[in-house]
């Protein structure tokens, strides 16, 4: 869920929901439907907005009973301290970790690596997978595979990998990228970007070995209902809750 000034942005098209912009309402629907984890990403750029987000995290923790990760604009131990104290289970860092990789170790040492998720936005430049920052707007020289290994060594407990080539296409996950990343790292990988139907989830689990898959708009719009998706995965012998 992308959050701006305390509200869910990106379109939401649920039927049984009173207020589609309220992240807590939406979160409750997902919990009921059987989502295993939720991710809330603050895309607000203002100081006021950040404060609203921290308050929102507290309310989410009061209302939902599954693990959730929060991210967006985190650049210090004290940022994380506030979010975890508010009740978040994990935090996700992206641009700030690329800028200052030691942040990963600082957070892992202070809070344990189980709550440090490093988000990697991967895009192709001249045929090579490079790390992008600032919501995918800035290309870096960093090689995605080298960065993933480095993030793990520094103490990342999980990697949330989004292929910008696939994100929004609904054409399936980045199978080759995810397969190779899963082979060279030892922490759980959450695949993101490209989910359009249940078969895409089956493919990503069967072909890459990743531990989890994330989607946003197809759930928001009810195109692939979570209970139905889980049934299809179960039919294929993929263990799900």
């Amino acid at each position, binding site marked *: 869920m992308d959050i701006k000034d305390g509200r869910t942005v990106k379109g939401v098209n649920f039927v049984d929901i009173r207020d589609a912009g309220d992240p807590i309402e939406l979160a409750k629907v997902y919990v009921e439907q059987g989502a*295993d984890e939720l991710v809330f990403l603050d895309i607000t750029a203002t100081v006021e907005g950040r404060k609203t987000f921290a308050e929102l995290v507290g309310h989410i*923790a009061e209302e939902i*009973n599954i*693990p959730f990760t929060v991210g967006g604009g985190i650049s210090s131990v004290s940022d994380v301290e506030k979010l975890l104290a508010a009740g978040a289970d994990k935090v996700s860092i992206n641009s700030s970790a690329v800028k200052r990789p030691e942040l990963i170790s600082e957070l892992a040492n202070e*809070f*344990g690596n*189980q709550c440090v998720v490093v988000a990697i936005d991967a895009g192709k430049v001249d045929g090579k997978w490079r790390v992008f920052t600032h919501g995918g707007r800035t290309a870096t020289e960093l090689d995605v595979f080298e960065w993933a290994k480095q993030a793990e060594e520094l103490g990342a407990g999980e990697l949330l990998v989004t292929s910008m080539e696939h994100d929004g296409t609904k054409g399936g996950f980045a199978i080759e990228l995810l397969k190779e990343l899963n082979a060279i790292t030892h922490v*759980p990988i959450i695949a993101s970007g490209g989910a359009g139907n249940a078969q895409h989830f089956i493919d990503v689990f069967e072909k890459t070995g990743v531990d989890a898959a994330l989607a946003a708009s197809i759930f928001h719009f009810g195109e692939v209902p979570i209970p139905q998706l889980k049934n299809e995965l179960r039919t294929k012998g993929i263990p799900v809750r």
Partner: protein
Amino acid sequence: MIAIVKYNAGNIRSVTNALHRLGVEALVTDDPKLLREAEKVIFPGVGEASSAMRYLRERGLDEVLKSLNQPFLGICLGLQLMCKHSEEGNTDCLGIFNENVKRFQSTKEKVPHMGWNNCSELKSSLFNGISTADDFYFVHSYHAELGTQTTAQCEYILPFSAALQKDNFHAVQFHPEKSAEVGQQLIKNFLEL
């Protein structure tokens, strides 16, 4: 009154939230008198074993906790601290349970064990209305070995104690407060003990 043991471990907020959702207010305290008077005591925790034990000993809370007679529920690190010894920081623990706590060793599987998993050999009333097909949410790098006090097993890398019980002392390795409906059922079962 339900008391939650206050010590240098995180995750207390999510337990108070879970109780609140069940309409139960809890008191977070390290006052021995209040802990003794509580109807039930919950011992949560996410943290490191040796520093947590040091904290409890410095305040004499180790002896207080061991002497409690009311229903008591340890969660995650709480379970591990109730065991005999932990490899994490090589520390002696409370010794309520005979089992020892070991680090997961695997070159193949990922550590920590993080995610949803089911339990088998359910032997405690904490699991009333819960089946071996139901999943709980786990996050841990250390595990209690199987033993005579094991009341539920989970298998990850090897079979380990997902729950333990001795008299009034109950403990679970997973996080019921993060385990959706099933976790809520377990907390309800504890509250009804």
